[in-house]
C-alpha cells in the first residue's frame, strides 16, 4: 500500500488533502485535524463511514460534501457495520471480478464520536471487531454528545459538567468514571489498538499508518478537544490537548494483538491534572473547596493508570 512518508512535517505537508474546507465543524475543532491527518497518512483509496455526530452532520449536508473519497453515513450506531458491509462486498466482487479496478488499493475506515462508540454503537462496533473485517475504526473522543449540545456519555470523565450531569449546589458533575474503551477493544483480540492525540501529530500518524497496514479490525481512540463543550478558546485546541497528554489524563499508547502494550509518548515534565482541568470551563466547579476531593480522585486515578501502563509495558503484556 501507498503509505505516505511522515519523516518530518515538511514532507508530510506535501500530501494533497482529501478533506475539504467549508465543512460546518466549529472553529478550532479537533475532529477535522484528526480526520485530515488520517486521510493524509495514506495515498490509498478510502472507503469511509461515519456515525451520526458532529463530524457527520458537518461534512455531508446536502447539497455539499467535504469528502473527496467514498463516504457513507447510515445511522448513529452503525458506521462499523456500514463500512464492514462495504468491505465484505469488496471481497466478494474482487473474487468475482466485478470491480471496476480490481488492483486499486483501498482501505476501509469508520469514524464515530464517543457517544456512538462508547454508547449507542458499542454493540455494532463490538460485532464488527469480532468478525475480523479488515478495517480501522477511529473514535473521535470529545467526551460528550457535542452534536446535541453537550450531554454526558460514558466517555465523559468523572467530575465534568455536562447538560445531563450538571454541576450544581448538590452535584460536582458526572459521578461515574470514564469507560476504558481501549482495553475493551484490545480484549476483542484486535491486532492493533491505540490511544492517540493530534498534538502528537507524528505518533498519531504512525499509529494511523500501523492500523491501516495491519490486516484485521483495528481500533484507535483519539483525543478530540472540544472547544464548545469543554469550554476553552478555539485557538487553544492544541494547547489543551498538550495539557491532556502531559498530565497523562490521555496517555498515548498502543496495544498489539491484545497483549503487547507500548507507551508512545512520555512527557518530559508530567504536569498536575489541575493544570489540565483549570484550562476548561467544564471543570471550573471542581476548584471550589468542597470539590477538592474530586480533583484528588482524578489525580489518583491518573497515577494508578500510568503505573499500570508502565508495568504492562515493562512486562510486555
Amino acid at each position, binding site marked *: 500500500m501507498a503509505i505516505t512518508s511522515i519523516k518530518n512535517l515538511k514532507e508530510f505537508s506535501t500530501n494533497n488533502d*482529501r478533506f475539504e474546507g467549508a465543512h460546518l465543524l466549529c472553529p478550532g475543532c479537533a475532529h477535522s485535524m484528526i480526520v485530515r491527518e488520517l486521510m493524509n497518512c495514506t495515498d490509498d483509496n478510502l472507503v469511509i463511514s461515519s456515525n451520526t455526530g458532529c463530524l457527520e452532520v458537518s461534512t455531508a449536508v446536502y*447539497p*455539499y460534501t467535504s469528502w*473527496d473519497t467514498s463516504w457513507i453515513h447510515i445511522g448513529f450506531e452503525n458506521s462499523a457495520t456500514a463500512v464492514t458491509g462495504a468491505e465484505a462486498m469488496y471481497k466478494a466482487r474482487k473474487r468475482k471480478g466485478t470491480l471496476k479496478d480490481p488492483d486499486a488499493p483501498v482501505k476501509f475506515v469508520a469514524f464515530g464520536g464517543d457517544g456512538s462508540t462508547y454508547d449507542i454503537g458499542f454493540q455494532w462496533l463490538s460485532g464488527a471487531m469480532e468478525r475480523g473485517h479488515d478495517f480501522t475504526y477511529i473514535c473521535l473522543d470529545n467526551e460528550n454528545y457535542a452534536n446535541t449540545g453537550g450531554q454526558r456519555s460514558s466517555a465523559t470523565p468523572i467530575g465534568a459538567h455536562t447538560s445531563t450531569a450538571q454541576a450544581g449546589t448538590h452535584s460536582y458533575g458526572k459521578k461515574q468514571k470514564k469507560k476504558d474503551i481501549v482495553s475493551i477493544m484490545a480484549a476483542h483480540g484486535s491486532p492493533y489498538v491505540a490511544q492517540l492525540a493530534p498534538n502528537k501529530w507524528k505518533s498519531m500518524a504512525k499509529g494511523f499508518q500501523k492500523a491501516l497496514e495491519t490486516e484485521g479490525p483495528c481500533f484507535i481512540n483519539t483525543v478530540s478537544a472540544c472547544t464548545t463543550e469543554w469550554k476553552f478558546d478555539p485557538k487553544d485546541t*492544541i494547547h489543551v490537548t498538550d495539557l491532556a497528554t502531559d498530565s497523562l489524563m490521555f496517555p498515548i499508547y498502543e496495544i498489539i494483538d491484545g497483549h503487547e502494550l507500548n507507551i508512545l509518548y512520555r512527557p518530559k515534565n508530567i504536569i498536575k491534572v489541575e493544570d489540565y482541568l483549570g484550562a476548561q470551563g467544564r471543570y471550573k466547579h471542581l476548584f471550589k473547596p468542597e470539590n477538592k476531593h474530586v480533583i484528588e480522585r482524578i489525580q489518583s486515578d491518573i497515577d494508578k493508570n500510568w503505573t499500570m501502563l508502565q508495568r504492562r509495558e515493562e512486562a510486555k503484556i
Partner: protein
Amino acid sequence: MSITGSAIGTDKRGIRELGGEEKLGWDEVEQGVVLSSFDGSTENAAFLKPEEREYSDFNSYTATVASWRIIKPVYNRDICIDCQNCWVWCPDTSIISRDKQMLGIDYDHCKGCGVCVEVCPTNPKSLLMFNEASDNDAELAGWPVKEKKEK
C-alpha cells in the same frame, strides 16, 4: 470571494455562501441523496493538487465560510520557516502549502479559529490574528519585532 493574499486555488473555490445554492425541484434532486465529489472521472485525489481537480458543485470546496470569521490570520512570509505546524493542525484545510512551502491562507475556508497562530513557533510569529475588516498590507507593515524572552 478570494481576497488578496489567498494564494492559489481553483476558479471554483468558495464561489458561494452555504445555503446560497439554487433550490431545485423534486424532479431535479439527486437520486438517493448521493453527492459526487468531482465532475466526471477522476484520478485518486491523493495524487492531485486542488488546482488540478475537477470539483463538482457538490464539493464543499466550492462553498465559502468566510462570513463565519470575526478575526482573521494574516501571514508574514518574511518570518515563516515553513515548519508546517499551521498546515498539520488547521482544522479547515485552509493553510495552502505546496512543495514544503507555506504559500498563504485560504480565506474562503478559514473560520478564524486562531490555532495556526498559537502553533506558530517563530519569534515574532509568522501568523497573527487581526480584525476581519483590517487591511492585510497595513498589518504586515506594522508587524511586531522579535520579543525578548523574559528571564
